[in-house]
């Protein structure tokens, strides 16, 4: 896969002196979905804005489809569609007109068949003659996506597409994104919902404090950083963990009716076999066993924490 977007040392310092980005390097492969995770104020929106042209970067180089985003901005920007975080739509314009307007703005000739396809894919076709102000929140968001797709971009930026959206709508948005990916569009989305990144992304980048803390294949990230825990339900509760088991760092749970053992999911020797043997030797009777993999959320929290500790 070729890289459709490359960022080299992109920096942004606002007039107030606030440094939003400290030299970010990033590449996006053609056809992939990259999720940028990070807490509020981490620099996600600034990063997207620098690529799309709504914010001027103060340093670094951005290349879109081989075109420099500053010196060759016309070619670079025509490859990019942006769906902003806030619902920015002119309230009194009609859906069809506003989508057609965006296509024109990007210098593309009229193609009503394409716009019809886009609106149908987003279930907006029936609403094409409605005014924006008459639409529900979810539909407005889809109008924003339709506008961004109106000029046939090769990269779509979705800035927190499901912020403040209910569960049903969020699932619906995920389906829309899956469809877009199937149509060959590369996607960068920002979110602070980890389940969203987990559900949609091929790769995940974590931004914190204006730095890209890490960027990795989702599966690799999960197995590298993911910890698993083994929960052992006991027949009779234990008040004190026997000394013979101290090396396992077990934790009591459920008022002593269970013990929890944590281990690296990717490790070649997990120590489970030995633990079970030692439990039996210690005279503990097991009722049930269950394992759980830590979610991205936990990975994320531990990453952010360790970075903050490093800086402190």
């Amino acid at each position, binding site marked *: 896969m070729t890289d459709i977007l490359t960022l080299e040392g992109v920096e942004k310092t606002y007039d107030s002196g606030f440094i939003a980005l400290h030299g970010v390097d990033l590449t996006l492969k053609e056809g992939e979905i990259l999720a940028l995770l990070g807490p509020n104020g981490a620099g996600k929106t600034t990063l997207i804005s620098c690529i799309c042209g709504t914010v001027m970067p103060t340093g670094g180089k951005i290349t879109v489809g081989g075109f420099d985003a500053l010196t060759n901005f016309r070619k670079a920007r025509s490859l990019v569609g942006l769906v902003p975080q806030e619902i920015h739509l002119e309230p009194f314009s009609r859906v069809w007109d506003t989508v057609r307007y965006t296509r024109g703005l*990007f210098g593309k000739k009229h193609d009503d068949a394409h716009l019809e396809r886009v609106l149908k894919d987003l279930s907006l076709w029936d609403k094409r003659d409605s005014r924006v102000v008459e639409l529900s929140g979810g539909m407005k968001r889809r109008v924003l996506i339709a506008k961004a797709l109106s000029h046939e971009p090769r990269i779509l930026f979705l800035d927190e597409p499901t912020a403040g959206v209910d569960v049903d709508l969020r699932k619906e948005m995920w389906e829309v994104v899956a469809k877009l990916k199937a149509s060959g569009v590369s996607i960068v989305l920002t979110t602070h919902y980890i389940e969203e990144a987990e559900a949609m992304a091929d790769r995940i980048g974590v931004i914190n404090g204006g730095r890209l803390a890490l960027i990795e294949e989702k599966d690799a990230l999960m197995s590298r950083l993911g910890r698993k825990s083994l929960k052992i339900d006991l027949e009779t509760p234990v008040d004190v963990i026997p000394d013979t088991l101290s090396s396992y760092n077990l934790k009591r749970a459920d008022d002593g009716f269970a013990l929890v053992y944590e281990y690296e999911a990717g490790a070649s020797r997990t120590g489970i076999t030995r633990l079970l043997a030692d439990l039996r030797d210690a005279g503990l009777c097991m009722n049930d066993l269950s394992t759980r993999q830590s979610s991205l959320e936990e990975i994320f929290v531990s990453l952010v924490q360790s970075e903050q500790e490093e800086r402190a």
Partner: protein
Amino acid sequence: MNLTAIRAMYVSEMARFFRTFMQSFLSPVISTSLYFVVFGAAIGSRIDEVEGVSYGSFIVPGLIMLSVMTQGISNASFGIYFPKFTGTIYELLSAPINFLEVVIGFAGAAATKALFIGTVILGTSALFVEMEVQHPLVMVLFLILTCVSFALFGFIIGIWAKNFEQLQLIPLLVITPLVFLGGSFYSINMLPPIWQTITMFNPVVYLISGFRWSFFGVADVPILTSLLAIGLFQGLCLFAVWWIFKTGWRIRK
């Protein structure tokens, strides 16, 4: 030049005008008619000719200028301020267009609207008073230059304004007084000498005077001075627009 994009912006801005066509069309017709009833018939009947022209006819160029300037400013400033207000400016910033194209699309549409309204007022005036235009080409030139200059000026105000109050501030505090005191309804010669001198610092005097010359061949200042003044104003506006384009002032963070 991204001509498709310019057309998209122009058409979209004009669509807003046509959406409120009755308001855009009727309000200048009604207000002009009122001016003629008040100044032309009621008060004007007690005023003799001014500079050899009947008072009713004399005020026509001033009335047209008054509307064209205020309409040019308000249309252009609102046109570019509204996307800033609703947030849809992100589209203009992320599109493969430069600032000059945005100016042509937005200010061009505003100038067109002002020109349309100026023409409507001219037509309405013809119903009330006898009209003569001695130098039609100069009149058209003046009208277009004024529409374009004040649309550019309005565009700059729209970029500058941070809220609706500021949007109204310059037209209200600067433009309206300058236009009313610029000889829309009187000849500068009717003022006491000291005020005649002060009035010469009002740039609008030169526009109204020149425009009136194209109708009746009489003017407060020489016609070339008037052309120079409007040319200078347009040059200043273009320079400001170029500077905004260069620095991204108040648009691109």
